[in-house]
């Protein structure tokens, strides 16, 4: 079985995210960059699946600038076999563009299964996986929390939704987006990180994929007009003292002032 994982580099979710002076991006200077948290489930599931089926091969891929090599190294240390980085063409970050570039590379490969994370911490659009599936002409299932190979070319998976889960049957090849709960991603061991660090990671340029600049421009369907910080909440009240008194006051406020109950 040939398995691919699509991943991207994002700021650590603990870091303080600030908007730049032009209000068109965040300040990236000094931010710690990590593998998008949901992608860890994708890598783990790919590694696990490969281990369970002899003769399988796993490839991790990212579209990103040079620094994003580090998440590919992490993936290799977690057990992925191969890694590819596609050089980011710059310009507007747009899901459609990202997906069409990724699917061009995937189209050159022989794959049975593609894992992606449920959503990316930075863009939150949850769209690239579905778009890639569409461009490759294969089925897509999102938010997968349980994954089972039931036959040579079929899967039984659980898609988590607002009120429970759907048990879904789907045939290979397909694209699966991974939700928390699917597995427990392993930590890459230091030894393995050191070994992965030495591995040659091929870089694909946009030119090598046969896209012209005009085409790439045409894939940018959206334009960011500006970023804003969500409005702050007005300061609240701190209530301290005897539990009975404090709760009496809270109870009164909730009923009379807030009128929520």
């Amino acid at each position, binding site marked *: 079985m040939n398995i691919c994982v699509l991943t991207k580099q994002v*700021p650590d*979710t603990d870091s303080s*995210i600030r908007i730049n002076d032009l209000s068109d991006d*965040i300040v990236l200077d000094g931010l710690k960059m990590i593998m998008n*948290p949901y992608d860890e489930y994708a890598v783990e599931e790919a590694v696990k699946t490969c281990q369970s089926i002899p003769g399988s091969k796993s490839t991790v891929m990212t579209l990103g600038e040079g620094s994003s090599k580090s998440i590919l190294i992490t993936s290799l240390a977690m057990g992925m076999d191969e890694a590819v980085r596609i050089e980011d063409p710059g310009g507007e970050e747009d*899901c*459609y563009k990202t997906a069409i570039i990724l699917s061009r590379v995937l189209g050159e490969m022989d794959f049975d299964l593609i894992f992606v994370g449920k959503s990316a*911490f930075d863009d*939150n*659009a*949850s*769209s*690239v*996986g*579905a*778009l890639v*599936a*569409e461009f490759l002409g294969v*089925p897509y*299932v*999102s*938010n997968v*929390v349980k994954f089972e190979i039931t036959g040579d070319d079929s899967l*039984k998976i*659980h*898609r*988590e939704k*607002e009120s429970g*889960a*759907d*048990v*879904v*049957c*789907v045939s290979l090849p397909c694209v699966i987006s991974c939700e*928390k*709960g699917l597995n427990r991603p392993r930590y890459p061991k230091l030894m393995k990180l050191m070994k992965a660090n030495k591995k040659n990671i091929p870089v694909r340029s946009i030119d090598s994929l046969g896209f012209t600049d005009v085409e790439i421009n045409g894939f940018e*369907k*959206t*334009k*960011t*007009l*500006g*970023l*804003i910080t*969500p409005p702050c909440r007005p300061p*609240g009240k*701190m*209530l301290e003292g005897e*539990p*009975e008194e*404090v*709760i009496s006051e*809270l*109870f009164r*406020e*909730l*009923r009379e002032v*807030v009128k*929520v*109950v």
Partner: protein
Amino acid sequence: MSQRLWTIVFTKDDKISRESLEVISAAKQMGKDIDLTIEAIFAGHKISVEDYRELLHQGIDRVYIIDHKDFRDFNLGAMKELISEMAEKYSPSIILMPANVYGKELAPSLSGMLKTGLLADCIEIRHRDGFLECTRPIYAGRILSKVKLDCDGVKIASIRPHVYPVPETVDEVTTEVEIVQYNGFSGAGAVIREIQETLGGMDISEANIIVSGGKGMKSAENFALLEDLARLLGGAVGASRSAVDEGWRPHHDQVGQTGKVVMPDLYIACGISGAVQHLVGMNRSKCIVAINKDPDAPIMKIADYAIVGDLFEMIPILTEKFRKCRTGG
């Protein structure tokens, strides 16, 4: 000339889902700025008028009914095929749908199929100078981004649930009903075999009141305290990721970056420190109460009422007060 706007309707427990009605609100809001013909697409199996009557009272122009066995459950392949066939015939300008789990599968798939742009998970959508423009949360809600669609052809957007209100219904029915034929999906796709409604209580993202517990609850059993209070208030119980990771609560009750985003009228956070990944899931609640031993916990800085103290002392007193008030004591 009037532009055609479509809203995609999803059902939940055989009823039209609240999110789908909220999308109609978003459409009507947009209709104040430009001349729109608003039409809803309702696909299902063995449909009776009762199933879609609610749509006839939303003051929209038309409802398309598509009755086919492929639409008994959500079927991404069939849905996108149906809508793209219909789009070819009717040339809509805009397609809106809820950004729930199904909508987040359908919207990007359609955008790929129709080779057009998508605004995903919008909290506000508007039409300006001939463009579709939205505000959408990025970085898990820590930043808001204003984005416009810069493409030809039909424009697609998904609308985050529970931001727009459910529209006011109208008594008079002027909505037309049109039946559309669909021949069935032949491609490879994902098919639902079984639906597991694992949700014991209420879906927290639909609750008006949420009582939420964190690591400070110390055990699964102690959540009974919060359940008592939530039951009295007609609310639901939520949890922080730590409480979920401990196995005290199911993942679908988790609030935050890797859980649900909630916007209830009242959010009571008990023994939750307020890590940024939790805050982004609840900081748009109307009123926030935090009960925490530590006055410096980050949740205390954003709470409208920050109660300093032991939750095991405080919660029972609060519950008792509401109980008395309920029973008229």
